[in-house]
Each structure stands twice: as structure tokens, then as C-alpha cells.
């Protein structure tokens, strides 16, 4: 069981630092991903990142660095193809998702020698975050905070109403690509915590859980950061106490919180305003421009 001394262990300090950095990144980016409804795209990017891990092994580069460049490349490709293909990118995402992982599996099998920590790239291990990766995570998180802070208003405009942002002459394509690259960056930050397979869940679950209780994007981001931190620290202590895999523990906690939030959001302040039910006030969504 836990004892008071665990905080003094170096690996524990690293784990807590990693949790804080990852929570900041995924609270901010996760909120944008959830409100923009890009969960599937983000899932594709995060799973395809395994291709970069495999290539890293194959060419003796740090797998995390390989994963970063690979997933940024995948994010840019998806963004550019989406621009050309319009809304029909479901299949593309599915293909990229699987193809990226296939690249990883083949590369790993071609790589010479033993690949000891492959499992930790797939499912994460918060207790084994190397010092070097902490620095990488800190740099990436700082970049995410800085870019979102600098471009907050246009990012809000693009995620809120893409067509209107276009009418206002905002560089919608460039901003969407920025958001995709930030998502890829965030996925890399999450690898050490919950791994490639589970990363999408930690990215999305905190933001989705707080959504029903927040009425503004900045509050949603802040609440997501806090919830992500609570989840990852709880997961960290539970996995330490009961010797469970940390990544999976964090994700299961997140899923449970999300389920509870779905029930509780019926009574949330965000719904307090006005009368009637939501469906009364719902206008039809655009189904596609006339004549296209």
C-alpha cells in the first residue's frame, strides 16, 4: 500500500510532473477537439502515430521523436485532403488509422534486436517517464499554451462556425491545420501517460465530461485541465497502490467520470437558462449547401 515516502522517489516526481504537463495540454486541446467534433480525426492521428514509433525503432531514432514527426505529417495530410474532399473523410481517417499502425508493426518486426518498451508506447506507463521525455513534454505543452493563447479568438471563431469564419476572411484552412498539428503534438505528450492506443480517450474524456457544466470555452478548458489532472493523479496512485497498469486505470476512471457527467449534466447550470427542453429550442443543423 501507499506510504508517505513515495513522493520522494525520483520516478514519482517525474510521474507527477508528467501528469501536470499532459493535463495542461490535453485539457486545452481536448476542449477544442470536442467542440469542433474532431474526435474521429484525432483518433486517426493518435493511432497512426504508432507508425512513427516503429520507424523510430527501425532507424534508431528516439521513437517519441519519430512519432511526433509522423503524426504531424499525418495530421497535415488529413487536413489538406479534407480541404479537397469536403466532408467525405470518414473512410480516409479509417485508412490512415490502420495504415499508420501497420507501418509501425512492420517497422518493429524489421527492426533488429529486442524492443523492450514497445508495450509502454502502446499503453503508457506513467511510472516510467524518462527525464528527457519530461523536458520534451514541457516544451510541447508550452508551445500549445502559447499558440492557443495567441490565436485564441480566431481558433474560437473557426471551431464555432467555420463557414462564418470563412465569410469573415479568416484563414480557415491554415487555422484548421494549426489545430490538427496541435492535436498531433498533444497526442505525443500523452504517449508516456496512457500510450498511443488510449491517448484519444484522455484527450477527449475530460473535455467531454465538463462540457455540460461550462458555458464558455475558457472555463471548459480550465475545468478540463483540472479534471485531467485529477484523473491522471488518481490513476497514478491507484496503479501504484494496487499494481495496475497506469494508462488503463486512468482511462477507466475517465470513462466512469464521463458516464456520471452525462447523467449529472441534466441538472447543470448551463441548462438553467430559459424555459422548455433543449429539443424545443433546437434549430435544424445545416445538412449541406443547396445545389452542391
Amino acid at each position, binding site marked *: 500500500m501507499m506510504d508517505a515516502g513515495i513522493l520522494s522517489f525520483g520516478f514519482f516526481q517525474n510521474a507527477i510532473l508528467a501528469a501536470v504537463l499532459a493535463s495542461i495540454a490535453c485539457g486545452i486541446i481536448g476542449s477544442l477537439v470536442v467542440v469542433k467534433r474532431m474526435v474521429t480525426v484525432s483518433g486517426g492521428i493518435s493511432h497512426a502515430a504508432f507508425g512513427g514509433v516503429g520507424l523510430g525503432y527501425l532507424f534508431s531514432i528516439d521513437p517519441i521523436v519519430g512519432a511526433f514527426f509522423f503524426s504531424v505529417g499525418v495530421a497535415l495530410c488529413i487536413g489538406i485532403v479534407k480541404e479537397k474532399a469536403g466532408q467525405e473523410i470518414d473512410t480516409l481517417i479509417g485508412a490512415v488509422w490502420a495504415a499508420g499502425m501497420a507501418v509501425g508493426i512492420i517497422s518493429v518486426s524489421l527492426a533488429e534486436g529486442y524492443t523492450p518498451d514497445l508495450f509502454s508506447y502502446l499503453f503508457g506507463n506513467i511510472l516510467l517517464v524518462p527525464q528527457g521525455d519530461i523536458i520534451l513534454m514541457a516544451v510541447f505543452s508550452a508551445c500549445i499554451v502559447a499558440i492557443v493563447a495567441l490565436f485564441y*479568438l480566431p481558433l*474560437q471563431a473557426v471551431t464555432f462556425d467555420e*463557414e462564418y469564419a470563412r465569410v469573415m476572411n479568416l484563414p480557415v484552412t491554415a487555422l484548421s491545420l494549426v489545430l490538427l498539428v496541435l492535436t498531433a503534438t498533444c497526442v505525443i505528450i500523452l504517449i508516456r501517460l496512457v500510450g498511443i492506443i488510449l491517448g484519444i480517450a484522455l484527450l477527449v474524456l475530460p473535455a467531454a465530461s465538463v462540457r455540460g457544466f461550462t458555458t*464558455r470555452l475558457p472555463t471548459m478548458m480550465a475545468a478540463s485541465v483540472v479534471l485531467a489532472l485529477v484523473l491522471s493523479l488518481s490513476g497514478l496512485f491507484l496503479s501504484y497502490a494496487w499494481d495496475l497498469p497506469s494508462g488503463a486505470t486512468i482511462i477507466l476512471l475517465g470513462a466512469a467520470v464521463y458516464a456520471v457527467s452525462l447523467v449529472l449534466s441534466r441538472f447543470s447550470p448551463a441548462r438553467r437558462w430559459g424555459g422548455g427542453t*433543449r429539443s424545443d*429550442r433546437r*434549430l435544424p443543423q445545416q445538412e449541406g449547401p443547396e*445545389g452542391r
Partner: protein
Amino acid sequence: MTRTGDPRMRPVIEVSDVSFGHNGKVILEHVSLKVRKGDFFALIGPNGGGKTTLLKIILGLLVPSGGTVTVLGQPPGRARSRVGYVPQFRTYDFSYPITVREMVLSGRLSHARFPWARYTPADHEAADRILERLRMAPLAERPVSALSGGEQQRAILARALVGNPEVLILDEPTVYIDAPTEVHFYNILEDLRKDLTVLLVSHDIGVISRHVTRVACLNRRLFTHDSPEITEDMIEAAYQCPVDLIAHGIPHRVLGDHPGEGGSR
């Protein structure tokens, strides 16, 4: 295109011989129209007649396969900061966490410069002014998701107007709101018209209110007499079937002349 020396005489929106096709289907065929300063121009026609497509070409969101368009003397897309747009359906997500004030303020981004970091005091003043004018001020801090259909419509209108546009383009703005709200909406528009040129699209000839100065029917081709009247031959040409013009309790003046209104300009 013709350009006279007096800029006031130049059409605010000029569409010349525009055609548009998609997937082998002709949607617009040799459409020409001029919207002049101060017009309240109503574009009517059946669903699928190409009205939204024409608006998107005017806004520069779609590129025509033939013909030219100018808006305020510039190619479409260049003058966007001087154009307000009220889309056909809500193009945004109902449950997005944003307040009415934030949504309206976002309409000021068309004036902002890279990297659009902050709203200026002038932006906030403009938002306050338009919220006040549309009687939305008490709702300013509410989340958009808590608005009724009519309130959302006014919020969308406020976002379109907050940039002080010279032209307002509305695409079926009242389809999903009830009749009293619709009347209120058109009263607001009438009030705003003094400083605006308005281009309004509808599939429902019933919305053609007494405010309209010119009207045209669009069903792939454009049918117009360059007047505020809808004539039966225009309607029948556009809808390709006889239409009962009395149907929706349309003001009687839709048919035939009405002294003192519209007329030659």
C-alpha cells in the same frame, strides 16, 4: 460590366452572366442581376433553384464556372469586411460553449488584423450598440445554447451587423421561427434599412413584405422585371406551375402596382 463615373450609381452587387454547375448538373444558367444602393432586394424561387448557391458565389465561397461578380466594386471575397451574412441554417453547433456577447464580438474579426489577439474597445462598443439595438442586451451573458429560436436568429443578425456592413445578405432568415417572431424580425430589418443595402433570399413568396423594393425569381435562370412587383408570369416561369399568390395571406400589394412605394429608381 458598366462603370459610370458616379460611384453611387455603381451597383452594390453586380452579377453578370454567371453560370454554375456541380457534378454535371447545371445549377445556375446565365444569371445577371444588379443590387443598387439602398435596395431591399428579394430573391425568391423554389427549393433547389440555386438561391443559396448564388449567395455563396456573391460571398466568394463558391467560384462560378462562368461570368463575373463584383461586390462594392471588388471581386467577391475582397469586400467581405463590408458585407454582413445571415446564413440559411445555423451553421454553428447549438451546444458550443459561447455566450451571446462572445458570438456577436466574433463578427468583428472581419476587421481585425493578424494575429487577431484581442478585441479592441471599439469592438466592445460596437457589440454593445448592436445588442442594445436588437434588444439583446439582457441576454448578452447567456450561453447561445440557452436561447430560443427567435433569440438565436437575432444573435445571428447581431453578429452580421456588428461589423457595420454596407450590405446585408440574408438566406432564408425566418424559416425556423414562428410568425410573430418573423414579424418582429422584419420590423428590425426595416429599422436597419436606412443605412443598408439588403439582399434577401426566400423560397416562400409569403415573406415578401411591403418593405421590398425589388424582387426577382430564381430557378436556375433569373426572372425579373426590375421592379418591386412579382408578376404571375415571373412566378410561373420560375416555379413552372401556377402559384396561388394569395396563399399565405400575402399583403395585397404584392400583385400589381402600389403607389408611393418602390416604383422606378
